[in-house]
């Protein structure tokens, strides 16, 4: 469980608070999405989860351990962050070496190392790319590799920062499969995004940030039902909500209630069920 208790944060002594009084709990095995427009503090928030940043006021607990008391090297064993631009983390001549280097750093050696690398390559469909330089991969493949790297040392929480940025349709479907795969292992996945459309795949629990404050915390469906919250906080209304709204009122089907249709459609698309 990751717990934020009254967290305030600012980068500079003189600067303004980037996070203001954040209280939230992330349970194990959940899928959560942190939403917000540019500069709302999403990335700052997730950097607190593995101790990259320490709160100016308040505390963050990862499985009961205060992040102020543990170094990042220990916290990162439990919490993995995949940043927006995966190429910033690559340094090995090949995909296989990249995975090996990561595992060696966590003390995996010998036969266990070999078998674990094979397992990951298979699982994330990277076996064909094993000899390629990570920098030469396509955007989607790089993303897949970066998630595979984060997954390789078996952390309990995987945080994806803007995972859909710059991905084409196929890569997005790829990403969805990868995330589902990770979820099926009972891991916690936290998706940071402003792409509401993509979240229909998972219907996650929502944390909506605006200027460093949590303005909405609840289920995906509740967010869709309150469209003003979506608009007010600088996000795009999903096309599908617009269609449902249109069908319900102006489209000549006044008898159809927005919320009913919404739950029908979200229920069909959302594979998590918890809508």
């Amino acid at each position, binding site marked *: 469980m990751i717990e934020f208790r009254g967290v305030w944060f600012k980068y500079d002594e003189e600067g303004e608070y980037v996070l203001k009084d954040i209280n939230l709990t992330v349970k194990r095995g959940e899928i959560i999405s942190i939403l917000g427009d540019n500069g709302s503090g999403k990335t700052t928030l997730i950097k607190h989860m593995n101790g*990259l940043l320490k709160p100016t006021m308040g505390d963050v607990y990862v499985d009961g351990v205060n992040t102020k008391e543990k170094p990042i090297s220990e916290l*990162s*064993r439990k919490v993995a962050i995949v*940043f927006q631009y995966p190429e*910033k983390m*690559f340094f090995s001549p090949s995909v296989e070496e990249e995975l090996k280097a990561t595992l060696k750093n966590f003390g995996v050696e010998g036969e266990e190392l070999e078998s674990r690398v094979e397992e990951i390559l298979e699982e994330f469909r990277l076996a064909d790319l094993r000899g390629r330089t990570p920098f030469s991969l396509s955007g989607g493949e790089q993303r897949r590799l970066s998630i595979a790297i984060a997954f390789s040392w078996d952390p309990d929480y995987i945080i994806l920062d803007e995972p859909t940025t710059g991905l084409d349709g196929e890569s997005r479907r790829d990403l969805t499969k990868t995330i589902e795969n990770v979820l099926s292992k009972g891991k916690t996945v936290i998706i940071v995004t402003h792409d509401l459309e993509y979240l229909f795949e998972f219907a996650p629990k929502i944390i909506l940030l605006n200027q460093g404050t949590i303005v909405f915390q609840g289920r995906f469906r509740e967010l869709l039902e309150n469209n003003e919250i979506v608009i007010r906080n600088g996000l795009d209304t999903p096309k599908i909500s617009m269609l449902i709204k249109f069908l319900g009122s102006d489209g000549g089907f006044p008898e159809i209630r927005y919320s009913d249709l919404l739950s029908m459609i979200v229920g069909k698309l959302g594979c998590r069920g918890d809508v």
Partner: protein
Amino acid sequence: MYRISYKAFKFEAKDALLFRIDPRAKLFTALYSMAISIIIFNLPTLTLLTIYLMIYIAILGKILRKIMRNILVLTPLIIIIFLANYLVTFNIISSLVPAIKLLTLVLSMNIFFLTTSPDDFSLTLERLGVPLTITLAFSLSLRFIIVLARQLNEIIEAQLSRGYTLDRGGLLQRIRNFIPILVPMIVLSIKRSIDIAETLEVRGFRTDIKHTPYHDLKITAKDIVFILLSIISMTIFYYPLQEVLSATFPL
């Protein structure tokens, strides 16, 4: 704790006289001030010059805080220069002179560097006859210090997040620890430079023809007065002030 600060390199325009003066006038003044600080050897005079330059920059440029930060960064170097001199000469006064001289040199340079935007900087070089390819490389590298520092921070964060530590092991291991940071840094920088070259080409940038800048530099009466007053005030330190002070305090 691993964050690299790039504030010192960030150009911020202030509403102050030094920011409105022609960069060539500032460059000339800065060089003159450097020359003056090199030829003064009397400790009290040098100290007075340092204080004068600080007040000069603080009033005309309103950037005292930034300068104080730069001096703070320089303090170890100043101490090393003092100690190195002291170990050779065993004379405190004559060891203090080069240490303070470094301070005056840095202050003098700041008259130009902290008050001139990268754009004006390259324009100044261009107007002084430096070829465009060189001025462009110069201004781009100045401008990209901030971008690269930010990139470095992001790479460090990404590697820390996948369990790497920088301060672990012996000397050799510590050097090795930097590989995961250096490799992406170099690869991404090369990629970025190719991107910039392409962008410049796409926007029709050519170095084989004379180009006309959007803002051109123009020396006005204000700049002339600025140069004259600055030069006169700085020269006073060399003569007669040094003369008088070395007679009273022969240090």
